[in-house]
């Protein structure tokens, strides 16, 4: 049954930093740049903001566990509602979902969600472990996991169980690059082929360098308020009509089954709250830390059957004219991935529904699904937006 909050809250402003490399710039400065951009886009001022959500505890994000307080202080605001949910790249989607509940409940009127990181330049050489080497991590970290290696484990088993090929995965990277060609801010715009992906160095097989997202210094922000207040603003509101979140595992020994993720749960919750089915979605921004991240999401969210993600991608269904156009700005694979792509995926969905995408502009889409995947296929958060 459609949730009672569905459509009651709208995203009224969105801004993605055009930066991709910003050596020496502290990430907090990018937060402020993005907050200003999103508020200007909304026709609101910083003084209107009474809710703040952010996560910034990765080394390249510049804050520690008090991140939401650090960012509020830096911006110079004292919000009455806060959310510091910290679940990797999916966090900004959960921030948006939680903000919807807060606004619908009257706990906040205008919520600012910001994200920024110097993933490329600030600092250098940080490790990417998700846990400490004590507690549960003592049985995993000594073996040398890395973020890409954990996704490679999932890709390998998917290939074994379903016959998915390296070419299938490469097709996802090729499509994202094609979408980036029109985006003047995209990190990489020169078209690539499946052969180019397969010829790029293996990082953790079966994943090649071109199966991995770009690493940038950048950020983004968006502003939510009630649908009623949105009517009095000049911009085109994008309504939040569905949301769901779910947890998988952090230790890879606990991933079960190895070819499905928490997206199955977060997606089902999002569709139920929106009263929609996958066939009702016009376009999607799917988390693309790696090509396998997209493939698993396609299946787990219900856009194709389990095991058919590779065929779906290779058949061109992700292209602008396909069954499900994705990552229309180039995504994290080609445009921008400072650390938590989720914020930028939401922003591109908003732009697409407003007809202002800097990448591929689809023909009058009315619904967009945004999916976030954090950690090592650990956390899932799914939003459905509509105009």
């Amino acid at each position, binding site marked *: 049954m459609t949730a009672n909050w569905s459509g009651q809250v709208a995203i009224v402003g969105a801004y993605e930093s055009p930066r991709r490399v910003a050596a020496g710039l502290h990430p907090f400065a990018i937060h402020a740049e993005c907050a200003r951009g999103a508020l200007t886009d909304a026709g609101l001022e910083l003084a209107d903001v009474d809710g703040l959500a952010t996560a910034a505890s990765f080394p390249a994000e510049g804050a520690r566990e008090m991140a939401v307080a650090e960012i509020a202080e830096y911006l110079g605001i004292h919000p009455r509602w806060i959310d510091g949910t910290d679940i990797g790249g999916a966090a900004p989607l959960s921030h948006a979902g939680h903000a919807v509940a807060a606004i619908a409940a009257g706990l906040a009127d205008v919520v600012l969600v910001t994200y920024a990181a110097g993933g490329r330049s600030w600092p250098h050489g940080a490790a990417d472990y998700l846990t400490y080497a004590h507690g549960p991590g003592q049985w995993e970290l*000594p073996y*040398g*996991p890395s*973020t890409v290696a954990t996704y490679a484990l999932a890709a390998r088993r998917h290939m074994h169980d379903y016959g998915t090929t390296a070419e299938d995965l490469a097709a996802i990277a090729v499509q994202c690059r094609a979408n980036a060609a029109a985006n003047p801010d995209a990190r990489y715009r020169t078209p690539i082929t499946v052969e180019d992906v397969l010829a790029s160095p293996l990082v*953790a097989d079966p994943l090649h360098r071109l199966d991995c997202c770009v690493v940038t210094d950048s950020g983004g922000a968006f502003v939510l308020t009630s649908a009623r207040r949105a009517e009095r603003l000049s911009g085109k509101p994008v309504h939040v009509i569905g949301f769901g979140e779910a947890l998988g595992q952090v230790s890879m020994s606990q991933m079960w089954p190895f070819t499905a993720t928490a997206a199955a749960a977060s997606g089902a919750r999002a569709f139920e709250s929106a009263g929609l089915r996958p066939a009702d979605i016009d376009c999607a921004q799917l988390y693309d830390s790696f090509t396998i991240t997209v493939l698993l999401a396609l299946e787990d969210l219900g856009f194709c059957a389990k095991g058919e993600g590779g065929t779906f991608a290779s058949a061109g269904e992700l292209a602008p004219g396909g069954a499900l156009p994705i990552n229309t700005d180039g995504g994290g694979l080609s445009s921008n991935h400072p650390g938590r792509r989720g914020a930028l995926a939401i922003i591109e969905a908003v732009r697409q529904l407003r007809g202002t995408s800097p990448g591929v502009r689809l023909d009058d889409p009315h619904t967009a699904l945004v999916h976030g995947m954090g950690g090592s296929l650990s956390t899932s958060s799914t939003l459905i937006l509509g105009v």
Partner: protein
Amino acid sequence: MTASGLAPLADEFSQEYWDAAAEDRLLIQRCPGCGQYQFYPRRHCTGCFAPDPVWHPASGRGRVHTYTVVRQTPNAEFAADCPYVLAIIELDEGPRLTARIVGASRAEVRCDAPVTVVFSPAKDGVTLPNFALVGT
């Protein structure tokens, strides 16, 4: 060979596991109440939430559920180890654990290949359970 890596930080509870590994014994846990085997070790059973599952000697036999050959890593402790085979092993008892595939034939690793536990010297004098392909 043991300068690289990252040592597990044992605690009062887990010390028994690492002491056993140093004697070439792999321990998992079994719940005396519901009988479930589990790994990684915890102070409760994830099947019935009863406290204090007991240590149980594992067969040391299992299959490679999945694996990857790590050729590059951002994690400096392991850069010198590249390339290495990181794997998820499904033990015959049921639980899965994270380990490496080691041994001369590791390049022939495949999903579902049978493996047996071996014990490798690691950082700070710790012994890590790893796995080798059976029959090689």
